[in-house]
């Protein structure tokens, strides 16, 4: 399974995470964002609307993304966060780092302004 990525502007993309981001596809997620980071994409909107599984390896791959883009003031935004994702974000206190938005649209607007 590969990740569905939508280019929004020259520095922002939307990644539709899909049903699961876990130890099975975390490496693939890393390869995917790596290509965009090399193309100077700074902002990543992660669409979690369909996500039922986010395990610690999956979350770790999102952390890797954050570590790569934060020195350039890039952002990782969480959009339309499903309940299972919410639980993980709460537990690890990562809502302190990743801004959350009720929808992809809301995240788009916030990042555009």
């Amino acid at each position, binding site marked *: 399974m590969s990740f569905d990525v939508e280019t929004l502007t020259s520095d922002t993309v939307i990644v539709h995470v899909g049903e699961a981001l876990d130890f099975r596809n975390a490496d693939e997620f890393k390869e995917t964002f790596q290509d965009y980071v090399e193309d100077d994409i700074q902002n990543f909107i992660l669409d979690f609307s369909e996500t039922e599984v986010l395990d610690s390896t999956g979350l770790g791959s999102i952390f890797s993304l954050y570590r790569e883009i934060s020195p350039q003031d890039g952002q990782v935004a969480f959009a339309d966060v499903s309940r299972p994702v919410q*639980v993980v974000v709460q*537990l*690890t206190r990562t809502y302190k780092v990743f801004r959350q938005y009720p929808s992809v649209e809301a995240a788009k607007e916030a990042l555009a302004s």
Partner: protein
Amino acid sequence: MAEHSILIVEDDRTVRELLKHRLGKHYNVATATNGQDALDHVESSIPDLIISDIMMPKMDGFALQSALQSDKNTRVIPFIFLTARADEPARKQGERTGVDDYITKPFDMDQLLSRVERLLERVEVFQSNLDAEIGRDFSNRLLPDRLPDVNGYRFDFHAEAHAQGGGDLFDWVETDQGTYFLTIGDVMGKGLRAKFYAYSFLSYVRGTLHTLLKESTSPAAVMRSINEMLLSDEVLEDTFASFLLLHWNPHTHTVTYANAGHCRPVLVTPDGPEIAEHSDLILGLEEDTSFSDVTLDLAPGGALFAYTDGLTEQPGRNGDMLGEAAMRDLAAEAQDRDQPIEAIRTGTLDRSAADDFQDDILILWMQRSPNTD
């Protein structure tokens, strides 16, 4: 599972291309036209299996096979000879060691494929057994072989490793003042990689504690220094971990903790169990993360229950993970038991849709005796 790589060594172009075409459907195939060519290839990248012709110009199959046998890194590569009928006498002449199979040309492609598959399967089983063994070894090193023994307290600890588990760790040290510093952590990721990082990590934490405890017993201060290390160390660069550091003082009956994104412990009080609410950001994510110390009082009969996410992420009967609320209930049930940890274990499985644990689990239970002051 990564695709296996096969090196085909054959001077006859037709046979070479045929093999490449058929094997290429299942494996990552490279080709060489003689023994020397093959050795050059092996030098730059070691294949999972070699299929070689015998009669070839420059360096023949026997010479190639002997050359591979002389190096311990290449000796173990599974090796299949493709022999023409005319080679039979030569083959019988020298029974060679290190050849896994002979296939006589003209060969049946399906037979070749099934032999290749069987050989690679054998290698894989060997590899995964080895991984499991190393994993168990790491797991054992990530856990202490004895526990604190303190008057007026019971201290129970239990950990069990799962094949698909990750990097749970636990360690403790007694300070010069007769207090205890406990470290519980979970390094993100699964399998051998996570265990390896957890192991490197724990070694660092042990070293840091040794130095820091001379100056301060603040878990938050230790947490800051571990976070700095994670962010600056190149080897650990992509490593993230949740940590719970506890400073337990049995004389004042207090536990001071700092929590970096770890499962929140349960404090059992005279009014019932409650979650130790405060926690900060997980380690390895951001520089200058602030961590704070929170102090809890252990009343007579009171207990502290700490654990890793193997318990909370165990699937419940309705398919959702058990979560924190179940941990609070389990603590209440375990409080008056002779074997609190066993009560938590079985209580978890009773609530679960699965018969066994799906991940590493780690449980720590420390309880003050009811009749101490």
